[in-house]
C-alpha cells in the first residue's frame, strides 16, 4: 500500500495544476522512455505520469507509461499495476472528455490480469469492458471497437459474450472501411471476428471471415495461422492458447502507434 500513498499526492498536483503544455509533455515522455530503457523505473514512472498528465488524451504517452509498468512489474508486482490503474482513474476523473485516457485505463486493467488470481482476473476483465465502453461513448474508433471486441472473446462461451465481441469487431471493420486508409493492423479485426464465430462454434463462418480477411490482407500472419489449421482439434488448440487468460495480452500498440524511418512518432490513429 505504501507506494500508492506516496505517489498519489504529486499526481493529483500534476493533474490539478494542468500547467504543463504539449511541448513539456513531449519532453517528459522522451525522458521517461529513456529512464525506462535504463530500467530506472521510478524515474520513468514519474516522467511518464507527468507527460500523460500534461496530455491526458495522448494515447502514446499513456501506452508508454503502461509498458514501463509491465516491464517493472512482470507478473508479480501487483502494486505497480494498482498504481497505474489508480493514476488513470484519477486522470479520467479530472479529464472526462479524454477518450484515450479511458482506453489506457481499460488497457491498464488488462495489463494487470496475468498478475492476479482467477476470480480477480474476471473482475479486471469485466471492468476493462466498462472503460472501453466509456472511451467509445466519447469517440468511435477502430482501436476502441477492436480492443473491446477482442476482449469479449476471452470470456468462456458460457458467459455469452461472443456476440457482443462480433458486433464490436464488425463495427471496427466498418470504421476502417469508412476511413478508406487500410493499415496492416486492420487485419487483426478480421482475425478476431472469425475467432468470435469460432467461439460460437460456427467454424465454417469463422473460416469464411478469415478467408475474406486474407483477401484484403494477403500474407497476414494471424489469418494465415488460423487458415492453415484445417483440422478442428489443431485450430481449437491454437485458439485456446491465444485466448488463455493466464497469458499476457500485448497492449503495446506498437504496430498502431509506430515510428517513421527517422525514428519519429507517427500520428496516433483515432
Amino acid at each position, binding site marked *: 500500500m505504501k507506494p500508492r500513498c506516496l505517489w498519489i499526492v504529486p499526481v493529483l498536483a500534476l493533474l490539478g495544476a494542468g500547467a504543463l503544455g504539449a511541448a513539456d509533455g513531449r519532453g517528459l515522455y522522451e525522458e521517461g522512455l529513456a529512464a525506462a530503457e535504463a530500467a530506472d523505473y521510478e524515474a520513468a514512472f514519474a516522467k511518464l505520469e507527468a507527460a500523460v498528465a500534461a496530455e491526458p488524451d495522448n494515447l502514446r504517452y499513456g501506452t508508454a507509461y503502461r509498458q514501463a509498468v509491465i516491464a517493472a512489474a512482470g507478473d508479480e508486482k501487483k502494486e505497480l499495476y494498482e498504481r497505474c490503474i489508480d493514476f488513470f482513474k484519477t486522470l479520467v476523473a479530472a479529464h472526462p472528455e479524454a477518450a484515450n485516457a479511458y482506453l489506457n485505463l481499460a488497457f491498464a486493467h488488462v495489463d494487470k490480469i496475468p498478475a*492476479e*488470481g*482467477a*476470480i*480477480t482476473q*474476471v*473482475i479486471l476483465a*469485466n*471492468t476493462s469492458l466498462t472503460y472501453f465502453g466509456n472511451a467509445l461513448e466519447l469517440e468511435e474508433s477502430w482501436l476502441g471497437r477492436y480492443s473491446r471486441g477482442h476482449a469479449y472473446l476471452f470470456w*468462456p*462461451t*458460457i*458467459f*455469452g459474450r461472443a456476440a457482443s465481441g462480433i458486433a464490436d469487431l464488425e463495427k471496427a471493420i466498418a470504421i476502417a472501411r469508412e476511413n478508406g486508409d487500410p493499415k496492416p493492423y486492420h487485419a487483426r479485426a478480421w482475425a478476431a471476428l472469425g475467432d468470435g464465430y469460432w467461439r460460437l462454434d460456427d467454424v465454417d463462418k469463422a473460416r469464411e471471415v478469415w478467408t475474406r480477411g486474407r483477401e484484403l490482407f494477403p500474407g497476414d500472419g494471424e489469418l494465415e495461422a488460423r487458415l492453415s489449421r484445417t483440422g478442428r482439434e489443431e485450430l481449437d488448440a491454437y485458439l485456446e492458447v491465444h485466448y*488463455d*487468460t*493466464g497469458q499476457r495480452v500485448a497492449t503495446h500498440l506498437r504496430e498502431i502507434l509506430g515510428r517513421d524511418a527517422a525514428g519519429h512518432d507517427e500520428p496516433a490513429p483515432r
Partner: protein
Amino acid sequence: MRTLAPSFLLLVLATGAAANEIQDAKEAASAKAATIRFEEIGEAAGVRFVHSTRKFAGRHKRQVLEMFTDGGAAVAVGDFDGDGYDDLFVTSSDAGAASHLMRNGGKTRDGKPLSFTEVTAAAGVGGGNDPLSIVADALWLDYDNDGRLDLYVGRFGTPLLYRNEGPGEDGAWRFTEVAAEVGLTKFGNTIGAVAFDADNDGWLDLMLANYFQPLNLLDLETTKVLPNDLDYADNGGGVTFYRGVELEGGRRGFVDATAQAGLAHHTGWSLDVGHADLDNDGWQDVYVAGDYGTDRLFMNNGDGTFKDVTEQAIGFDTRKGMNVDMGDYNRDGFLDVYVTNITDEYMKECNFLWHNNGDGTFIDLSKETGTCDTDWGWAAKWGDVDNDGWEDLFAVNGLRSAGEQNYIPLLLETTIIKPGVDFSDLDSYPDIGDMTWSGYQKQRLFHNLGEGTFKEIAAAAGVDNDLDGRGLGMGDFDNDGRLDFFQANANQPSLFYRGVTENAGNWLELKLTGTTSNRSAIGARVRVEAGGETWLREVNGGNGYSSSSTLRLHFGLGAAARVEAVEIRWPGGKVERLAAKDGQPPVPINAVVRIEEGRGVVAR
C-alpha cells in the same frame, strides 16, 4: 526373539498359498504389458452409501451455506480389528444421518467376493450429526499406542474421538467417545485432518484443516461468514495443531499447540493438510491446501514447531487448493506434492504437481507431466495401480451435478462482477436451486509412464464415472497386491473400485509397527531395493482431501522378482536395514509383510 526364517515362512503361509501361484503367473506374464482395469463392486461388497450433505434452515441463505459446506463425504481406511484386512469408515453429514463402520471379510483369493459387514451400531461410532455439528472427515489413528486403531471424526463443530476398546465378550468391537476427556475440545469447521508425530516423541499429534473461521454455521448471528476475497481470503479457519501429551493419571491426550508450533498466523480457508518429510531431515513437514488463496508450506524446525517457508519454497498462489498428497513420482528420493485446484471452462487454474528440487524449493510441473487438469478437483491419491514401479494418480472431481442450467453465469452477473459486492456476505450470492455447478465431470486416472509424464486412462480403466467425488480411500482390501479405491461422493452413492489389472507387476506391501516410535509407524520412511532399483515411501497419517488411506505401504516392483533390501528409517531416527542373508531375500515379493521396529519381520 523370532528369527527371520520362521517369520518369513509364517508370512508366506499367512498371505496364502496363492502368493506362489501369483508369482508364477507374474513370471510367465512378465513380458506382457499390464492392462489397468478396475471393477466397481460397491453394491456387491455391501459398501454402497448415499452421502447426504447438511440442509440448513433459518433466516440466512439456506442454499448458499449448503453450497459452501457440501464436502463431508469422507472415507477412512484402516484395519481397526487387526485381522489383516483394511476396513472402511464412511461418513454422512445431514442432521441425524449416520456414518458407517464396515468390517472387511476379505478372502477373495479363494474365490469369495470381497464383502463388508456393517458393525456401526455395536461399535457406537455412527453419530455426530447433531443439531449443531456436521460430520466432515474421518481418520484412523492409534493415539494411545495400544495397538488398536482409534477413530477421529472431524466435524464442523468439536471433534469426536472414538477410542477402540477391542472386542467385547460377544466378539463385537466397542468404541468409547473420549474427545472431551482427551482434550479435543476446540470448536472448528474442520474438513481435513492428519495424524503424525511432529516432535518424534513416539506419540501422534493431530493437525486439522479448518475451512470457515470458528463460528457455528448452524447458529449464525451474522451473514458475513464467507471468504472476504475469492483469491486472497484471509478470514478462514486456518489450522489447529494438537500435540499428543500425557494427561493426569498417565492417560494420553492432546493440548492445543497451534500457536506454540508457529501455525496460528495462518488464517486461510484450509481444505486439506498433508504431511511428509520433504527435506529428508527426519522430521515431518506440512503442506496446507488453501481455498480462495495461497497454500502454505511449513517446514519442521526439528522440534515439532514449524517455519512458514511458503514464499521461498513455492511462492504465494491464488488458486483454490483442495487436496494434498505426497509421493516420489519420479523416484529421485525426494517426495513431491500433488495439489488439486479448479480447472473448468470458466476458470483454468491447473493443479500443482510440486516437483521437489531437493534444495528446499519446488517447481510446479503439472502441465509438463500432464496432470494439470482434473476439472473441479477434490481428493487425489498416489498409488502404483499396475505395480510397474511408478506411482500413478487417481483424482476425483465435480462440485454439483444437477439440472441443465449452469449456475456460473448467474453467479458471475449477480456477484462476481457486481461493483462493490461483499463476497463475505451470504446475501451476496444467489440461491443455486436445481442448477449445476461444475458437475458431471469425469474422474481422472493418470498412469505414470515413468519418464516424467502421465497418461490419462480413466475411461479405459473403468473409473471415469461422473459423480461428484470428494474423499478417496485407497488400500488393498483383498490383499491381492492390486490397489483398490473407495470413492465418496457428495449427495450421491459411493463407489468401490476393486483393482483387477491383468499382468500387473510384482509387489510388496509392508505393515509397520512402531515400538519406541508411534505404534502405527506414521512418518516411517522405507526404501525398498529390488532389481537394481530403489523405491521410497512414507507411512502417512491421512493425506488427501476428506479421506485417509491404508497405513500399509504398497510397492509396485515391476519385473523385479526378488527384494534385495528393505531399509526403514523409523520416526525418531533409528534406521533398520533388512538385507539378504545366506542367499535368502529379507522379505518375499507378492506378499503382505509385517515389520516391527527393532524386531524385523514378524508374524501377524
